[in-house]
C-alpha cells in the first residue's frame, strides 16, 4: 500500500498511532533530513518489530519501499509516495506533488521542475487530432493552467483520432467536452475553455498571458496568425503539422529563433488538411505528444529543444530527420 504526504500529514494531525521507519543509507539521511516526523532508522533486512500499529516505510523517492512491501508481502505497511523528496516539498506549502513522483525522480525535472509546471500556463490552439493528445498528457503531467481554444463541435469523423470525445458528444462544443475530461484528470489543474476560432482580431488578447503556445491547428492561415502573435508577444510556439503518415514539429520564435514564416515563406502553398489527405489515428497522437513534450521542456528549461530545428517523422519507416533551421546561404 502507499500513503501520500497529505494522508500522512492528516495522520499526524489527528494523533493517529503509527511507526515510521527510514530505510535510507546514512549519507542520504545526513544530506536530506526528514522534518516533522519521528523515525526509526532501519534497513530492508532489519525492519522494526510492531504489533498493531501501521508501519510507514520511507526512502528517498518512494520506489525502494514500494518494492520492499511487495517483495516481503508486508501487511499493514505503507510506502510514502514520492519518499522524502515529496514529503519535504509538501512541508513548504502543503502542496502534495507525490502523484508525480515517477517524473520528479528524474534529475532533469525534480520538485523544482514540477513546481514550474504547476505555476505555468500552456495554450493549445485547436483541440483536434494534435490538440487532444497534447492536452491529455499535459493535464496528467501536473501542469497548473491549460487554455483550450477551438470553435468547432465534435463530429463522427473526429473520433478515430481525438480520444477526448465519444459518440454521445457529437454536436457538442469540443472545448466544453475537453474541459470536463481534463478537469477530472487532475484536481490541481485549471482548464480555461474558449469556444472561439482564433484570428488576427482576438489572438493577442487570447494568448497574451500564456507561457507556451501549442499550435495544433489544421490550416496554414491560423498557423500564420499564431506565428505573428507569438513573435509580437515573445511567447514560444510549438508547431505541429500532419500529412498522411508524416508529421512535423518545431519550436518557433523561442529566444530569437526562427518562426513559421522563416521556414515556409510568407505565403506557402500546398499541404492538404487531414480531411483532404487522410490520416491514421495514431499519427496525431505521436506528433501531439512530441509537441507536449517540447512545451514541458521549454517551461522546465530542459535542453536541447527543437528550437531552431524542424523534426520530420515518418510513421511508415519510423525514420526521424531533424533539419537545422540555421540558414546556410
Amino acid at each position, binding site marked *: 500500500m502507499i500513503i501520500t504526504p497529505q494522508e500522512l500529514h492528516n495522520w499526524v494531525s489527528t494523533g493517529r498511532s503509527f511507526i515510521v521507519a527510514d530505510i535510507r543509507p546514512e549519507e542520504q539521511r545526513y544530506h536530506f533530513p526528514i522534518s516533522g516526523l519521528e523515525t526509526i532508522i532501519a534497513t530492508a533486512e532489519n525492519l522494526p518489530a510492531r504489533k498493531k500499529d501501521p508501519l510507514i516505510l520511507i526512502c528517498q523517492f518512494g520506489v525502494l519501499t514500494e518494492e520492499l512491501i511487495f517483495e516481503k508481502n508486508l501487511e499493514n505497511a505503507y510506502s510514502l509516495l514520492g519518499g522524502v523528496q515529496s514529503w519535504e516539498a509538501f512541508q513548504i506549502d502543503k502542496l502534495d506533488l507525490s502523484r508525480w513522483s515517477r517524473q520528479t525522480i528524474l534529475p532533469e525535472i525534480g520538485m523544482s521542475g514540477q513546481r514550474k509546471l504547476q505555476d505555468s500556463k500552456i495554450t493549445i490552439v485547436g483541440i483536434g487530432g494534435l490538440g487532444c493528445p497534447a492536452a491529455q498528457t499535459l493535464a496528467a503531467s501536473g501542469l497548473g493552467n491549460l487554455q483550450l481554444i477551438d470553435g468547432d463541435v465534435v463530429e463522427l469523423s473526429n473520433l478515430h483520432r481525438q480520444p477526448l470525445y465519444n459518440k454521445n458528444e457529437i454536436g457538442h462544443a469540443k472545448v466544453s467536452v475537453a474541459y470536463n475530461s481534463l478537469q477530472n484528470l487532475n484536481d490541481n489543474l485549471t482548464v480555461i475553455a474558449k469556444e472561439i476560432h482564433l484570428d488576427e482580431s482576438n489572438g493577442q488578447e487570447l494568448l497574451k498571458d500564456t507561457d507556451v503556445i501549442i499550435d495544433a491547428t489544421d490550416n496554414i492561415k491560423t498557423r500564420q496568425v499564431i506565428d505573428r502573435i507569438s513573435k509580437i508577444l515573445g511567447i514560444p510556439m510549438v508547431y505541429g503539422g500532419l500529412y498522411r503518415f508524416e508529421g512535423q514539429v518545431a519550436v518557433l520564435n523561442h529566444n530569437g529563433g526562427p518562426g513559421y514564416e522563416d521556414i515556409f515563406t510568407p505565403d506557402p*502553398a500546398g499541404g492538404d488538411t487531414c480531411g483532404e489527405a487522410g490520416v491514421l489515428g495514431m499519427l496525431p497522437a505521436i506528433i501531439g505528444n512530441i509537441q507536449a513534450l517540447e512545451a514541458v521542456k521549454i517551461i522546465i528549461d530542459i535542453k536541447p529543444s527543437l528550437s531552431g530545428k524542424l523534426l520530420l517523422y515518418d510513421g511508415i519507416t519510423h525514420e526521424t530527420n531533424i533539419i537545422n533551421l540555421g540558414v546556410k546561404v
Partner: protein
Amino acid sequence: MKVLVKCFSQVKYAIGSNELTVTLKPGSNSADLETMVREQSAGALDDVTLRTAVNKHYVIEPVLLEDGDEVAFIPPVQGG
C-alpha cells in the same frame, strides 16, 4: 556526381518514393535539383511550396552541390 534526394510529404507521393539517388552534372546547384524533381512529379508539385535542406541544413538561396550530398525537399503540411 551523385546526390541523395529525401522526399517528404507531398513530394514523396508525387515521386513515388521517400528517397532516390540522382546523377547531376558537376556545378549543379540545389535549385537545379528542385527543377528536376518538379519535372519528375508530372505537375503534382506545381502548386506546392518546397523548402530545401542540404545535409540537414536549411538553405534559402541555391547552393552548389557536391558528390554525396543529401538534399531534402520539404513542403508545408496543414493537417492537425
